[in-house]
């Protein structure tokens, strides 16, 4: 068995699903020669051919619009949109078409589209290439949202996303899907079919004192923080949500009922964030179990700044999480 990086996981998931189902196609900018800018689709054009791996013009509305039209007529497209910020270029396709057509048509159509892309800050990519936009995405009924925290999850969740009969957005964190030789996270490559169902959170670390909810790049930061807190005698339970929609509410509520405390670390601006949504759910459904106010470790309500010093201040991290838990 070999090593599996996040990038390799994405390649393998798409490759396996394209081999399994002839209706799966991949379209996006530079997917042919580069295999997209992070090379996560490299080799797929040579293997699956020009009818199934399609280089598009820089036309995000046409990429997602074409995916919608193709899905409405029998295909199972993967639309690579590159950075989540670029969803702004296909806002109508995302908000008004893809995610509403089934509902508007009285449930009489399936649109099995997987949107792939990069999200998140941490590499000084500045405001237009760094947002997670998860709060915004959460407000779009009809969309499933997958936010994996490592290579194995990327593999298993992306395969489920492609097989899902609904629109799914699968977002690879820019820190996890780094280019080779930049300190990639490596896990052991699994043999055979590796699938993780959407909507099942995983407890990355068990603890009795406080529940920390995290996703994507924040999971590692939460685990690092909990290692340090362990030394101070604080046992943190770390939940990795894996998917924001469907949301595994039960795992969160069960954990809070056990620990009595909840801190959410969320790489998004605090207003209208996923963290706010989880806090509201717990306040509504497990208030009596809380021993302390819920805390949210989020980014400030500003665009993402460029300079590493400013970006570090902006981004939630281990120290900010520890501070929130200890206080």
């Amino acid at each position, binding site marked *: 068995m070999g090593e599996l990086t996040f990038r390799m996981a994405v390649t393998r998931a798409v490759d396996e699903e394209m081999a399994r189902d002839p209706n799966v196609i991949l*379209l996006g900018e530079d997917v042919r020669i580069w295999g997209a800018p992070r090379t996560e689709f490299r080799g797929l054009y040579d293997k699956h051919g020009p009818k*199934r791996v399609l280089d598009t013009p820089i036309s995000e509305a*046409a990429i997602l619009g074409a995916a*919608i*039209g*193709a899905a409405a007529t029998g295909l199972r497209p993967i639309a690579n949109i590159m950075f989540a910020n670029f969803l702004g270029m296909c806002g109508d396709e995302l908000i008004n*078409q893809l995610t509403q057509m089934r509902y508007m048509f*009285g*449930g009489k159509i399936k649109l099995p589209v997987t949107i792939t892309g990069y999200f998140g800050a941490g590499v000084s990519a500045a405001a237009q290439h760094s947002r997670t936009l998860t709060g915004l995405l959460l407000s779009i009924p009809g969309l499933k949202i997958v936010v994996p925290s490592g290579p194995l999850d990327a593999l298993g969740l992306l395969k489920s996303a492609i097989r899902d009969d609904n629109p799914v957005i699968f977002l690879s964190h820019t820190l996890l899907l780094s280019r080779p030789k930049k300190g990639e996270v490596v896990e052991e490559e699994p043999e055979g079919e590796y699938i993780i169902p959407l909507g099942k959170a995983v407890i990355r670390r068990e603890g009795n004192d406080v529940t920390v909810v995290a996703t994507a790049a924040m999971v590692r930061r939460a685990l690092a923080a909990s290692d340090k807190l362990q030394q101070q005698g604080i046992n943190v339970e770390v939940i990795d949500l894996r998917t924001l929609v469907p949301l595994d509410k039960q795992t969160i509520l069960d954990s809070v009922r056990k620990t009595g405390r909840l801190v959410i670390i969320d790489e998004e601006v605090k207003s209208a964030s996923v963290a706010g949504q989880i806090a509201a759910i717990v306040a509504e459904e497990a208030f009596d179990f809380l021993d302390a106010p819920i805390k949210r470790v989020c980014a400030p309500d500003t665009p993402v700044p460029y300079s590493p010093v400013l970006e570090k201040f902006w981004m939630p991290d281990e120290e900010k999480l520890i501070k929130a838990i200890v206080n």
Partner: protein
Amino acid sequence: MKVAIEKQKLISMYTVMLRIRMFEEKVAREFADGNIPGFCHVYIGEEAVATGACANLIKTDYITSTHRGHGHVIAKGARTDLMMAELFGKKTGYNSGKGGSMHVADTDIGILGANGIVGAGTVIASGVGLSIMVRGTDQVVVCFLGDGATNNGRFHEGVNLAACWQLPVIYIIENNLYAQATRITNTCKVENLSDRAVAYGIPGVTVDGNDVLAVYEVVSEAINRARRGEGPTIVECKTYRSHGHYEGDPQVYKSKEEIEAWLKNDPVLSFQKQLAEIGVLTAKEANTIKQELADEMNRAVKFAQESPFPDPEDTLEGVYA
């Protein structure tokens, strides 16, 4: 008449045009009476475009449509009773009361929905073309859009993509002179909107959109080209929206002279006259068709009236598959 079309086909086309006209007249009345909620955009005056285009299509071909979509979906074969029930917001409607006038869809016969967003269909249609290419069938997709949509960025992205990949898409621009209340001449410096095709390296044709046979012939050529794998065509149909942008629109932006001039060129009456002249349709036959359609529309309204509203809890259904 340049093309040789069988008598039965001509009568069928006339019937479709009149079906659209009479459906829309019924809708305008029911809307005015308060029986149809929401927004309502009728197709009166433009019937020749949808009819001439869709007369070339078979059941397995596709269309995408617009906010003014009743005519397109009727021409593609949609049932007027299920449409009327949808407009009334009833459970028995095409979309179970979830969509209304701007979203009527019947995917079983290739109707991928009317669409409330101007220009949205252009990129979706390109994706349908992609799907046809990947699946290797000889289907085509007709994308209806208005003059206003050609000023939207999606038009550029969608047409360019279909041109690059030589997809079997026919973009039919219904130039009815107005985008809402604004004349196309105020928002576009191109006289014939089909000239925009030059920018994509594809054919563009402008045709009299009130002449159903002219539309039929031009679209027929474009479809043959598409089925041969030679890519998309832009067809501009110059026509006129006899009603306002929406039902109730006082149309202060139109002159009386303009309205009267276009009324003389009414596509349904012109075609009826043309068919009478060549001896295809007698006054008696025309009356019979009209009576049958009047009965159909009365049945459609009755069906809509008597159908139940959805259960309030149905709101929660149909988001995810």
